[in-house]
């Protein structure tokens, strides 16, 4: 299954283009651009719209809307005189729950919300009303955590991509946000609207120049600078660009199109469409350590007794750099070995992988949690998360060898607790390698070198 992002959008959150576009030519052009973006979505084979809204702040990690049909009447806190929007949205709850699980597997604090009367934020309501009237495509909405940093926001996107790939979705990723966000602090007449300051306008133009060239990751790297220069310090910073860039594999060679750029009550409002086709210029140039698993220290509450929290390993066997022997295949995208051997070895048109566990490259953490603590006391753990992580590690090693999961021909699996774990392991297998169809043997063993529950030995074709 090959899920992917087929379009990425940046759209403004203000209600003006939805409620009264006719009052200002610029607002009408934003509305027209929204309509054009909607038309492009309708002509694509998109089956999911993912909203990351800067107007839904959260404190307890990230929150994901999981009510299948949120309904209410939205009134903007500032622009209540423009009118009300009655919304009735269609949420892809399967995706919402899967994204939540994927977040937790990658070390994030995350939860779903599904409550009658929940106040869906103005940005999400406006975006979905204009991009997806009549709920033709199911949506999912995620909050912006007020404290999240770049690593956390990047991992949030990666876990979202995990689910897109697992479910084979053709997704449209939408960041609902202003560019410069300084509004006039006095009421103005619609015809008086303009970008609040020349400085804001110049920065906005620069951002749009980059985006029109498909240089999304460059904007992500400039995010903190942009926030310092043209953003009123509300609660959420300019982090949606981190999220959107990570949703696009931190690329700088997308194809970008600015459909409109106007002022809405002084703020910079733009509708931008980014497509994954390479524009042939630029390349990924990631400026910080890439991160696959969030190991931040913001869990101020003592949660050491949380049973399935992912923890980096602080003890265990020594780790080795993979051996660079004859025909060896090694990658820094897979965890370091616990002995002197390579990640894989290529012989003829076959690739033999060393036993692969769920440990994460970099911080050595275990998605789903370790099976025991340092003192050897058993811990609760999530076998599904561990199994998914094993499959992901296998995929990374095969990719390094120029192959893929589709070419796996034989697997030997090792479980430390067959009675407890076979069912969960088997479920993930069916969702992943089971669809490829390799032969498989599953063995119960007493222990593995690290506190993990599952390991796989793989043979694949090139």
């Amino acid at each position, binding site marked *: 299954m090959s899920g992917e992002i087929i379009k990425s959008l940046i759209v403004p959150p203000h209600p003006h283009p939805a409620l009264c576009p006719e009052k200002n030519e610029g607002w009408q052009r934003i509305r027209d651009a929204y309509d054009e973006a909607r038309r492009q979505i309708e002509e694509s084979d998109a089956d999911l719209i993912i909203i990351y809204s800067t107007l*839904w*702040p*959260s*404190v*307890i*990690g990230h929150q994901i809307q999981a009510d299948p049909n949120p309904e209410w*009447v939205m*009134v903007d*806190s*500032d*622009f*209540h*005189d423009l*009118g*009300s929007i009655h919304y009735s949205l269609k949420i892809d709850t399967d995706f919402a729950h899967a994204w939540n699980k994927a977040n937790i597997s990658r070390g994030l*604090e995350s939860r779903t*919300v599904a*409550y*009658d*009367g*929940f*106040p869906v*934020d103005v940005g999400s309501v406006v975006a979905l009303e204009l991009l997806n009237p009549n709920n033709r495509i199911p949506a999912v909405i995620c*909050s912006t*955590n007020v*404290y999240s940093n770049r690593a956390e926001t990047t991992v949030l996107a990666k876990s979202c991509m995990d689910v897109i790939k697992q479910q084979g979705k053709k997704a449209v990723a939408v960041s609902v946000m202003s560019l410069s966000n*300084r*509004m*006039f*602090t*006095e*009421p103005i007449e619609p015809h008086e609207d303009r970008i609040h300051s020349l400085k804001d306008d110049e920065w906005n133009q620069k951002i749009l120049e980059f985006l029109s060239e498909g240089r999304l990751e460059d904007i992500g790297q400039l995010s903190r600078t942009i926030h310092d220069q043209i953003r*009123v*310090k*509300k609660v959420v910073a300019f982090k949606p660009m981190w999220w959107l860039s990570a949703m696009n594999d931190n690329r700088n060679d997308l194809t970008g199109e600015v459909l409109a750029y106007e002022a809405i*009550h002084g703020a910079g409002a733009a509708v931008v469409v980014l497509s994954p086709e390479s524009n042939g210029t630029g390349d990924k140039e990631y400026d910080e350590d890439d991160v696959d698993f969030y190991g931040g220290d*913001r*869990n*101020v*509450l*003592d*949660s050491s007794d949380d049973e399935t929290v992912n923890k980096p390993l602080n003890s265990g066997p020594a780790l080795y750099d993979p051996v660079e022997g004859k025909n060896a295949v090694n990658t820094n995208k897979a965890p370091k070995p616990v002995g002197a051997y390579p990640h894989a070895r290529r012989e003829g048109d076959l690739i033999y992988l060393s036993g692969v566990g769920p440990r994460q490259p970099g911080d050595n953490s275990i998605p789903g949690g370790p099976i025991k603590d340092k003192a050897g006391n058993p811990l609760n753990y999530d076998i599904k998360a561990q199994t998914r992580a094993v499959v992901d590690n296998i995929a990374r090693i095969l990719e390094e060898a120029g192959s893929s999961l589709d070419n796996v021909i034989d697997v030997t699996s090792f479980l430390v607790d067959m009675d407890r774990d076979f069912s969960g392991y088997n479920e993930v297998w069916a969702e992943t390698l089971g669809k490829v169809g390799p032969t498989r043997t599953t063995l119960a063993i007493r222990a593995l070198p690290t506190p993990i529950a599952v390991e796989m030995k793989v043979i694949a074709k090139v």
Partner: protein
Amino acid sequence: MAKGSIVAGCLAPHPPHLVYADNPEQNEPVSEGGWEQLRWGYERLRESLKDVDYDVIVVLSPHWQTYVGTHFIGVEKCSSKSVDPVFPNLFRFNYDLTIDVELARSIHDQAKSEGMSVKMMENPDFRVDYGTIVSCHMVRPEWDKPIVSISSNRSLSYYSVEVMQEMMMELGRSTAKAIEESGKKCVLLASNSLSHRHFVTETNPPEDMSKEHITSHAMHLWDMRMIELMRSGKSQQIINEMPEFCDQAIAESDGGALTWLLSAMGVPTQPATLHGYGTIIGTGNAIMEWPCRKWGEQ
């Protein structure tokens, strides 16, 4: 007509956890209790106000955030469900309240005449913010008094603490003048916490008090300092130290409610009464009362 007056000014924080822990019938989620020190603090405040004659509660909440001036609800009957977007698991409250539109408009008009950017909110679909509801419910759960609901203008975000305070000082003076001219007796609520650094995880259950504490010693020191200044009647010093307090304690008084309250009471030198202090998901919360009704007797 006799002059109106402020009979009490209160610092009345609004964490939804307190309503959740009290389990009123209007709130859907139920709990095993929790945060008793603060809930008993609100009990003491209610006891203090029990025999006080007043007509209306005037509340400024940082959870109705406006960027284009200060807004006032101008709809007399507000009835809906308030769901906290941050803690929806704790607070889904069915409210049915009355707005004193006449007084709201008087404060609006007075502030406007002083040059402030103000606006009446007259959309009947508007949902009252949960901060306003929590503070009012904890002070007067009978809901038998009309309220005036004032938004929190985020001038600190746009400019600085100094500009925010200048505006809130003016709004406080306008509030006091409008109340005086109205002939009404009012209780004022500044609906905010003190230090405001949250934990980013939630215990299971949320009311597990074995995990509740202030997020850091620095936050504790700031909270105690502010409480002591209030207890000793040093309002002007609170205003003077507000920039450092907002910056270092991420204080929720950045929304202007506390400065507005102190200004409306004339920056009192009289001591405030501490009814309770406690932390909620790491933030510092104090329930304070300035018993203005008694000051003329002194």
